């Protein structure tokens, strides 16, 4: 399953797409597949400060609650409220279902993240699937 090459990835299965000093964040198709039907998403408010590696929200399937970890630090500019009303959109197309738009505090943080190729390798090694 292809992972967009212009995204960066975390080991917690978030993706981040940077465009200059702004970035959008979501979870990967691997994550939504593991979770199953997503029925609930909790996202931060506009203006919230995200700190890299810290929990910024959560996504829930019927069986599981999963924390969302910030791939980078920054201030929330926009929240995708369509997802709170229809969380199944994440299952339908996880790479299109952006959750928050950030103004990045330090774009260099993205250098520490995984490329699409590295993420694909990481996922194939992460047993069971």
């Amino acid at each position: 399953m292809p992972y967009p090459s212009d995204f960066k990835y975390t080991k917690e299965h978030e993706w981040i797409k940077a465009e200059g000093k702004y970035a959008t964040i979501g979870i990967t198709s691997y994550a939504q597949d593991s979770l199953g039907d997503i029925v609930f998403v909790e996202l931060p408010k506009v203006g919230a400060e995200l700190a890299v590696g810290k929990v910024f929200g959560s996504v829930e399937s019927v069986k599981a609650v999963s924390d969302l970890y910030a791939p980078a630090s920054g201030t929330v500019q926009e929240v995708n409220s369509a997802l709170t009303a229809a969380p199944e959109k994440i299952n339908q197309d996880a790479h299109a279902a952006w959750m928050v738009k950030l103004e990045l505090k330090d774009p260099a943080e993205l250098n520490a993240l995984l490329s699409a190729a590295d993420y694909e390798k990481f996922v194939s090694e992460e047993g069971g699937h």
Partner: protein
Amino acid sequence: MTTAEAAAVRKTALNAVHRQMGAKMVEFNGWDMPVEYPSSGGIIAEHNAVRTGVGIFDVSHMGDIRLTGPQALDAVQHISMNDAARVAIGQAQYSAMLYPQGTFVDDVIVHRLGEDDYLLVINAGTREKDFDWVRNNTRQFDCRVENLSDDFTQIAVQGPKAVELLQRYTTLDLSTIKPYWFKRGIIGLADQKLIGKEILIGRTGYTGEDGFEIYIPPDESTSAKVWYRLLDLGKEYGSVACGLGSRNTLRLEAKMPLYGHEISDTINVWEAGLDRFCKMEKPEFIGRPALEEAQGKGLSRTLIGLEMTERGIARDGYKVQDESGREIGYVTSGSYAPFLKKNIALAYVPPEFAAVGRHLHVEIRNQGVKAVVVSTPFYKRQKKN
């Protein structure tokens, strides 16, 4: 995981079939079981297939204890809180076995197979505990106690179309089996060697829908044949394989208790609201004296149904709070309900908070989220007349 623990995980005869079908597997009370099947569409699709069509479940992990002999009824009456004397041959009855304190050893379905012949169907996680309990507490009666848990593959066929589907697979007229009754019948089609094999077919289930549970030979070959045949024959009714995930959401909507959650060894019959299955007019059964004493004292907590009125899913173990945020109880089972499209929960709270319409909170990630007490069951199927 140590080697000893790994060896302890048990498998039903259909384990290879579930894996073949690509099911997501999970460990449940020591069993390697399917939680959902992506090929079925997942938990929500499976749940709704059972509510609108038919779903097929492997429930072989459940246990079976048979009591036979001249005093089999007396033995059952001693360990069971319901009145087994009311159970006719061919009838099944929901009951529970209690500890002397009036709390639950397990809930059970008592089937009367014959004159002095009873089959107790029990939970997966309590197989050994229940068998030991039954054996140790019936020694004084002239009856034989057998553990038949490994003698069956048990498949549940559940949903409004269950009878139509199963009727295509048996010559027994299923309309002659009323809910909570069972018969022996022959299943299979001419092209399979199952013709002539009589099996138990019970109109029971754990979903809140019409449906059957069938008890077939436990060998992998027969089990796989029956499983795949049922799915195949059921295609026109939208049949899908269903796992433990949907099994849980279905029974929750129907307010059916789950051992370890709504009932346990620290919860008594009155708290759990299972009064109607407990026949105090029976002069003797284990737990009766404690229950009588408890009746005199009144309840310190009671099981209620909750519906979330603010965004959030109440889950097992979450705290319940009153309007001021004070902790008053806890959630026993909670989930998104796929058919009702609501977030529901069962919880224990003191009786003064139990009135339908009362506003409470559930603590979700350190925040009190609004909920309201609702009547249960959350879902009740439309009965055909």
